[in-house]
């Protein structure tokens, strides 16, 4: 029973993680300018990573693998958020302006 519940939670996490990942992918491909793309990828990235790695943790139980997954998750969340922050800051400093309102040309 317990294993079954774990499996269901795992599948749910994986599905949600994949959904978020693909949303971010479509966002980075379709959105019109740099800042909108940045928001698409940065918002989904951490949640996607968290859900997928959490699902893997549930499957591996209390082993060294779980500890390693925890480390991966910790570093990933820390580094990817910092990197996107630094990227946005650098872009602003270089004079990039966010696209405000709707432009007619796509």
């Amino acid at each position, binding site marked *: 029973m317990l294993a079954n519940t774990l499996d269901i939670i795992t599948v749910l996490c994986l599905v949600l993680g994949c959904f978020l990942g693909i949303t971010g992918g479509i966002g980075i491909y379709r959105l019109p300018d740099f800042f909108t793309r940045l928001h698409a990828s940065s918002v989904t990235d951490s949640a996607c990573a968290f859900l997928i790695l959490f699902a893997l943790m549930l499957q591996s139980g209390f082993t060294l693998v779980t500890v390693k997954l925890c480390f991966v998750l910790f*570093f990933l969340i*820390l*580094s990817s958020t*910092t990197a996107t*922050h*630094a990227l946005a*800051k650098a872009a602003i400093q270089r004079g990039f302006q966010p696209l405000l309102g709707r432009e007619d040309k796509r």
Partner: protein
Amino acid sequence: METVINIVLLTFLCITALAIVQIRKLFCAIMLMGIFSLLSACLFVTMDAVDVAFTEAAVGSGISTILLLGAMTLTSIDEKRPSYQSLIAILVVVVTGAILVYGTMDIPPFGTPDAPIHRHVALRYIQQSPIEVGPPNMVTSVLASYRGYDTLGETAVIFTAGIALVALLGTYRRKTGSAPQKDKPSTLNDHLVLSIVSKMFIPLILLFGLYVQFHGDYGPGGGFQAGVIFASGIILYALIFGVDKAMRVISPSALRLLSAAGLLLFGGVGLMCIINGGNFLDYNTLAQRPIDGQHLGIFLIELGVGITVFAIMVMMFYAFSNRKGRSA
């Protein structure tokens, strides 16, 4: 399933390579090289070559991008269109490719268990190495013990490359060159979030480097990877807080000593084996029980490789970044 992942990744790899060929801006080509290296590391994982993937991960994501960027900053950013026609080049490439594809027809298909390559020495390595040498990671035992000569040669090549680089670019900064950089410290230093997060990361990277160095017998890892990871930690420090500060942490002259010391340690272990009455790099003679000798020998040799690779990688970074200060 793995076949599907394999094919998709290979296709991505070819598309990325094609884009690299097409793109004129060198900066974009370097960015795409980053993706190329990530993709090839994924492929190595799917093809069971975890140690190779590890090396590619350590080298490709950091060091090679940084070296290319450094060289590009010192030279030019755009690629000019060559004045000559490349039609002949296309012809040559297509003909050579066709001949090579014809050549693959005789190679046994991917994954065949009884291909000629698996019949020769591999069986011995797989079946005997845990008994004869010890470490569960067969790659480590082949690298350090069965093929210790090769590894000594490769380490010497890396050492030579480091010497050549220092001879070409020099490690010391002229005093006139360093003056203007000191008034203008890096603005990444002022970037609060970045510098705090990096301060958190650097010790962890160094610690992980040590883990890779000493855990290489049991899992993927070893001297080559550990050296590169350790160097990445120092390079991250230099990128955030400036090369001057990094040089105060570990000076170029110390690096030169270290790079030679690693190689000498490797060679010294080999000589020690001769003194103890064995052949060169025959670790069985190092201790009472042969398996202990193997363990000690592999440990020392991986340490030597790690030290040399670390020193040379940091030396290369220093050489490129100092040149920047000189020409600016």
